[in-house]
Protein backbone atom coordinates (compact mmCIF):
# COMPACT_ATOMS: atom_id res chain seq x y z
CA UNK A 1 0.00 0.00 0.00
CA UNK A 2 1.30 3.43 -0.91
CA UNK A 3 2.51 5.75 1.84
CA UNK A 4 -0.11 8.49 2.17
CA UNK A 5 1.16 11.96 1.29
CA UNK A 6 -0.96 13.41 4.09
CA UNK A 7 1.91 12.49 6.45
CA UNK A 8 4.17 15.19 4.96
CA UNK A 9 4.80 17.55 7.88
CA UNK A 10 4.43 14.90 10.58
CA UNK A 11 6.91 15.51 13.39
CA UNK A 12 9.15 13.17 15.42
CA UNK A 13 11.16 13.96 18.54
CA UNK A 14 12.75 16.17 19.65
CA UNK A 15 15.43 13.83 20.94
CA UNK A 16 18.55 14.81 22.84
CA UNK A 17 22.04 13.30 22.52
CA UNK A 18 25.09 14.22 24.61
CA UNK A 19 28.33 14.05 22.61
CA UNK A 20 31.17 12.03 24.14
CA UNK A 21 34.77 12.23 22.91
CA UNK A 22 35.44 8.49 23.24
CA UNK A 23 32.34 7.75 21.15
CA UNK A 24 33.47 10.30 18.56
CA UNK A 25 36.88 8.62 18.33
CA UNK A 26 35.26 5.19 18.04
CA UNK A 27 33.16 6.49 15.13
CA UNK A 28 36.23 8.11 13.50
CA UNK A 29 38.12 4.80 13.67
CA UNK A 30 35.11 2.96 12.18
CA UNK A 31 35.16 5.19 9.07
CA UNK A 32 38.98 4.85 8.97
CA UNK A 33 39.42 8.54 9.63
CA UNK A 34 41.89 9.14 12.44
CA UNK A 35 42.25 12.84 11.66
CA UNK A 36 44.11 14.58 14.52
CA UNK A 37 41.28 17.15 14.69
CA UNK A 38 39.25 14.29 16.19
CA UNK A 39 41.90 12.19 17.92
CA UNK A 40 44.68 14.39 19.30
CA UNK A 41 44.00 16.97 22.03
CA UNK A 42 47.45 18.55 21.74
CA UNK A 43 47.16 19.00 17.98
CA UNK A 44 43.58 20.22 18.32
CA UNK A 45 44.63 23.01 20.70
CA UNK A 46 46.64 24.53 17.85
CA UNK A 47 43.67 24.62 15.43
CA UNK A 48 41.13 27.38 15.03
CA UNK A 49 38.72 25.24 17.06
CA UNK A 50 40.99 25.28 20.11
CA UNK A 51 40.12 21.69 20.98
CA UNK A 52 39.02 18.37 19.55
CA UNK A 53 35.95 18.20 17.33
CA UNK A 54 33.75 15.30 16.21
CA UNK A 55 33.60 14.00 12.60
CA UNK A 56 30.81 15.83 10.72
CA UNK A 57 29.08 12.64 9.58
CA UNK A 58 28.69 11.60 13.23
CA UNK A 59 25.39 13.42 12.62
CA UNK A 60 24.03 10.00 11.63
CA UNK A 61 24.45 8.93 15.25
CA UNK A 62 23.07 11.95 17.11
CA UNK A 63 20.25 12.60 14.64
CA UNK A 64 19.81 9.01 13.46
CA UNK A 65 17.99 8.18 16.68
CA UNK A 66 14.97 9.85 15.11
CA UNK A 67 14.65 7.01 12.63
CA UNK A 68 13.45 4.52 15.22
CA UNK A 69 10.15 6.23 16.18
CA UNK A 70 9.67 6.99 12.48
CA UNK A 71 10.17 3.36 11.40
CA UNK A 72 7.92 2.14 14.20
CA UNK A 73 5.18 4.75 13.67
CA UNK A 74 1.94 2.71 13.72
CA UNK A 75 0.13 5.40 11.73
CA UNK A 76 2.66 5.45 8.89
CA UNK A 77 2.67 1.62 8.52
CA UNK A 78 5.99 1.44 6.63
CA UNK A 79 6.68 -1.94 5.00
CA UNK A 80 10.05 -2.33 6.75
CA UNK A 81 10.98 -5.56 4.94
CA UNK A 82 10.90 -3.62 1.66
CA UNK A 83 12.61 -0.50 2.95
CA UNK A 84 16.12 0.58 1.98
CA UNK A 85 18.09 3.73 2.71
CA UNK A 86 17.98 5.41 -0.69
CA UNK A 87 19.59 8.81 -0.27
CA UNK A 88 21.32 10.92 2.34
CA UNK A 89 21.97 14.64 2.53
CA UNK A 90 23.70 16.77 5.16
CA UNK A 91 24.11 20.48 5.71
CA UNK A 92 26.63 21.42 8.36
CA UNK A 93 26.46 24.83 10.03
CA UNK A 94 28.95 24.44 12.87
CA UNK A 95 31.38 21.89 14.29
CA UNK A 96 30.41 19.53 17.11
CA UNK A 97 32.59 19.14 20.19
CA UNK A 98 32.72 16.64 23.04
CA UNK A 99 30.26 17.70 25.75
CA UNK A 100 27.83 19.33 23.33
CA UNK A 101 24.19 18.50 23.95
CA UNK A 102 22.44 18.14 20.62
CA UNK A 103 18.67 18.20 20.27
CA UNK A 104 17.19 16.96 17.01
CA UNK A 105 13.66 17.57 15.78
CA UNK A 106 12.38 15.52 12.86
CA UNK A 107 9.76 16.09 10.23
CA UNK A 108 8.61 14.16 7.18
CA UNK A 109 9.74 16.60 4.51
CA UNK A 110 8.62 14.70 1.42
CA UNK A 111 6.73 11.63 0.22
CA UNK A 112 6.67 10.53 -3.40
CA UNK A 113 4.50 7.76 -4.78
CA UNK A 114 6.13 6.15 -7.81
CA UNK A 115 5.19 3.15 -9.90
CA UNK A 116 7.39 0.59 -8.20
CA UNK A 117 8.26 2.32 -4.95
CA UNK A 118 7.49 5.13 -2.56
CA UNK A 119 10.11 7.44 -1.14
CA UNK A 120 9.80 9.05 2.25
CA UNK A 121 12.22 11.74 3.48
CA UNK A 122 12.81 12.39 7.16
CA UNK A 123 14.59 15.67 7.86
CA UNK A 124 16.29 16.12 11.22
CA UNK A 125 17.33 19.59 12.37
CA UNK A 126 19.92 19.46 15.14
CA UNK A 127 20.52 22.32 17.56
CA UNK A 128 23.29 22.60 20.13
CA UNK A 129 23.03 23.68 23.78
CA UNK A 130 23.58 27.31 22.74
CA UNK A 131 20.50 27.23 20.52
CA UNK A 132 22.53 27.21 17.31
CA UNK A 133 21.47 24.92 14.44
CA UNK A 134 24.50 22.73 13.74
CA UNK A 135 23.21 20.27 11.17
CA UNK A 136 20.32 19.35 8.93
CA UNK A 137 20.31 15.69 7.94
CA UNK A 138 17.81 14.28 5.47
CA UNK A 139 17.29 10.53 5.35
CA UNK A 140 15.40 9.34 2.28
CA UNK A 141 14.08 5.82 2.35
CA UNK A 142 12.73 3.87 -0.60
CA UNK A 143 9.97 1.37 0.10
CA UNK A 144 9.55 -1.04 -2.76
CA UNK A 145 6.00 -2.12 -3.51
CA UNK A 146 5.21 -5.80 -3.19
CA UNK A 147 4.14 -7.48 -6.43
Amino acid at each position, binding site marked *: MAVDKKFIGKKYGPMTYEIGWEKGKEYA*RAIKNEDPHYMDKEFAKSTKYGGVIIPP*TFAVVYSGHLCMPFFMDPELKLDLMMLVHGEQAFEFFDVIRPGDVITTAGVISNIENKEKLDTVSLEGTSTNQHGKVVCKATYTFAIRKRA
Partner: protein
Amino acid sequence: MAKNIKDIKVGDGYTAKEEVDKYRTIYYAGASGDFNPIHIDPEFGQMVGLGGVILHGLCTLGFAAKSITDWTGDPGALKKLKCRFAKPVHLGDVITTAAQVTAANGSRATLEIKVTNQDGVDVLTMVSAEVGE
Protein backbone atom coordinates in the same frame (compact mmCIF):
# COMPACT_ATOMS: atom_id res chain seq x y z
CA MET B 1 47.69 22.60 6.72
CA ALA B 2 44.15 23.63 6.04
CA LYS B 3 43.50 24.63 2.45
CA ASN B 4 42.52 28.23 1.83
CA ILE B 5 39.01 28.09 0.37
CA LYS B 6 39.61 31.16 -1.79
CA ASP B 7 42.48 29.36 -3.54
CA ILE B 8 40.19 26.55 -4.75
CA LYS B 9 39.60 26.72 -8.49
CA VAL B 10 37.24 25.00 -10.92
CA GLY B 11 38.98 21.87 -12.18
CA ASP B 12 40.86 21.19 -8.93
CA GLY B 13 40.34 17.71 -7.59
CA TYR B 14 41.72 14.59 -5.99
CA THR B 15 41.41 10.81 -5.90
CA ALA B 16 41.38 8.71 -2.73
CA LYS B 17 41.10 4.97 -2.09
CA GLU B 18 39.80 2.96 0.84
CA GLU B 19 39.73 -0.80 1.25
CA VAL B 20 36.77 -2.43 2.95
CA ASP B 21 38.55 -4.84 5.28
CA LYS B 22 36.90 -8.00 6.54
CA TYR B 23 35.75 -6.55 9.86
CA ARG B 24 34.71 -3.06 8.70
CA THR B 25 30.96 -3.66 9.02
CA ILE B 26 31.44 -4.90 12.60
CA TYR B 27 33.37 -1.77 13.58
CA TYR B 28 30.84 0.47 11.87
CA ALA B 29 27.87 -1.33 13.45
CA GLY B 30 29.40 -0.87 16.90
CA ALA B 31 30.25 2.78 16.36
CA SER B 32 26.98 3.77 14.69
CA GLY B 33 24.52 1.49 16.48
CA ASP B 34 23.24 0.10 13.15
CA PHE B 35 23.15 -3.66 13.73
CA ASN B 36 20.88 -4.50 10.78
CA PRO B 37 21.69 -8.20 10.06
CA ILE B 38 22.44 -7.45 6.38
CA HIS B 39 25.61 -5.76 7.66
CA ILE B 40 26.83 -8.23 10.27
CA ASP B 41 25.38 -11.68 9.55
CA PRO B 42 26.80 -13.39 6.42
CA GLU B 43 24.16 -16.16 6.50
CA PHE B 44 21.37 -13.60 6.60
CA GLY B 45 23.04 -11.69 3.76
CA GLN B 46 23.13 -14.87 1.67
CA MET B 47 19.51 -15.65 2.48
CA VAL B 48 18.26 -12.26 1.26
CA GLY B 49 20.28 -12.49 -1.95
CA LEU B 50 23.09 -10.06 -1.17
CA GLY B 51 25.84 -12.68 -1.38
CA GLY B 52 26.99 -12.07 2.19
CA VAL B 53 27.15 -8.97 4.33
CA ILE B 54 27.18 -5.52 2.74
CA LEU B 55 28.80 -2.38 4.07
CA HIS B 56 26.60 0.31 5.61
CA GLY B 57 25.94 2.92 2.91
CA LEU B 58 26.66 5.61 5.47
CA CYS B 59 30.12 4.10 6.02
CA THR B 60 30.85 4.43 2.29
CA LEU B 61 29.62 8.02 2.51
CA GLY B 62 31.86 8.40 5.58
CA PHE B 63 34.85 7.37 3.42
CA ALA B 64 33.83 10.02 0.88
CA ALA B 65 33.52 12.62 3.65
CA LYS B 66 37.00 11.66 4.91
CA SER B 67 38.45 12.15 1.43
CA ILE B 68 36.97 15.66 1.30
CA THR B 69 38.13 16.71 4.76
CA ASP B 70 41.61 15.22 4.07
CA TRP B 71 41.71 17.37 0.94
CA THR B 72 40.61 20.58 2.70
CA GLY B 73 42.69 19.80 5.81
CA ASP B 74 39.82 21.18 7.89
CA PRO B 75 36.80 19.03 8.84
CA GLY B 76 34.83 22.20 9.62
CA ALA B 77 35.09 23.28 5.98
CA LEU B 78 32.61 20.59 4.91
CA LYS B 79 29.27 22.40 4.57
CA LYS B 80 27.12 20.08 2.45
CA LEU B 81 27.25 16.45 1.38
CA LYS B 82 24.72 14.27 -0.35
CA CYS B 83 24.43 11.00 -2.25
CA ARG B 84 22.22 8.22 -3.51
CA PHE B 85 23.06 4.68 -2.38
CA ALA B 86 23.19 2.94 -5.75
CA LYS B 87 24.91 -0.46 -5.38
CA PRO B 88 25.95 -2.64 -2.45
CA VAL B 89 29.54 -2.56 -1.22
CA HIS B 90 31.04 -5.90 -0.15
CA LEU B 91 33.90 -6.89 2.12
CA GLY B 92 37.18 -6.77 0.22
CA ASP B 93 35.97 -4.07 -2.18
CA VAL B 94 38.26 -1.14 -2.86
CA ILE B 95 36.36 2.13 -3.00
CA THR B 96 37.73 5.01 -5.05
CA THR B 97 36.51 8.54 -4.50
CA ALA B 98 37.32 10.94 -7.34
CA ALA B 99 36.29 14.55 -6.87
CA GLN B 100 36.40 17.58 -9.09
CA VAL B 101 35.57 21.19 -8.33
CA THR B 102 32.76 22.38 -10.63
CA ALA B 103 32.08 25.78 -9.08
CA ALA B 104 34.06 28.11 -6.84
CA ASN B 105 33.37 31.68 -5.80
CA GLY B 106 36.09 32.38 -3.26
CA SER B 107 34.05 31.52 -0.19
CA ARG B 108 32.36 28.30 -1.32
CA ALA B 109 33.30 25.51 -3.71
CA THR B 110 31.17 22.70 -5.13
CA LEU B 111 32.63 19.24 -5.67
CA GLU B 112 31.11 16.63 -7.95
CA ILE B 113 32.24 13.22 -6.80
CA LYS B 114 32.38 9.73 -8.26
CA VAL B 115 32.47 6.83 -5.81
CA THR B 116 33.26 3.53 -7.51
CA ASN B 117 34.34 0.01 -6.62
CA GLN B 118 37.32 -1.91 -8.07
CA ASP B 119 35.22 -2.88 -11.12
CA GLY B 120 34.43 0.74 -11.90
CA VAL B 121 30.80 0.41 -10.76
CA ASP B 122 29.30 3.54 -9.18
CA VAL B 123 28.33 2.45 -5.66
CA LEU B 124 27.15 5.94 -4.76
CA THR B 125 25.63 8.24 -7.36
CA MET B 126 24.59 11.90 -7.39
CA VAL B 127 27.39 12.59 -4.94
CA SER B 128 28.18 16.23 -4.36
CA ALA B 129 29.62 18.37 -1.62
CA GLU B 130 30.20 21.98 -0.77
CA VAL B 131 33.18 23.28 1.16
CA GLY B 132 33.48 26.75 2.55
CA GLU B 133 34.84 29.13 5.16
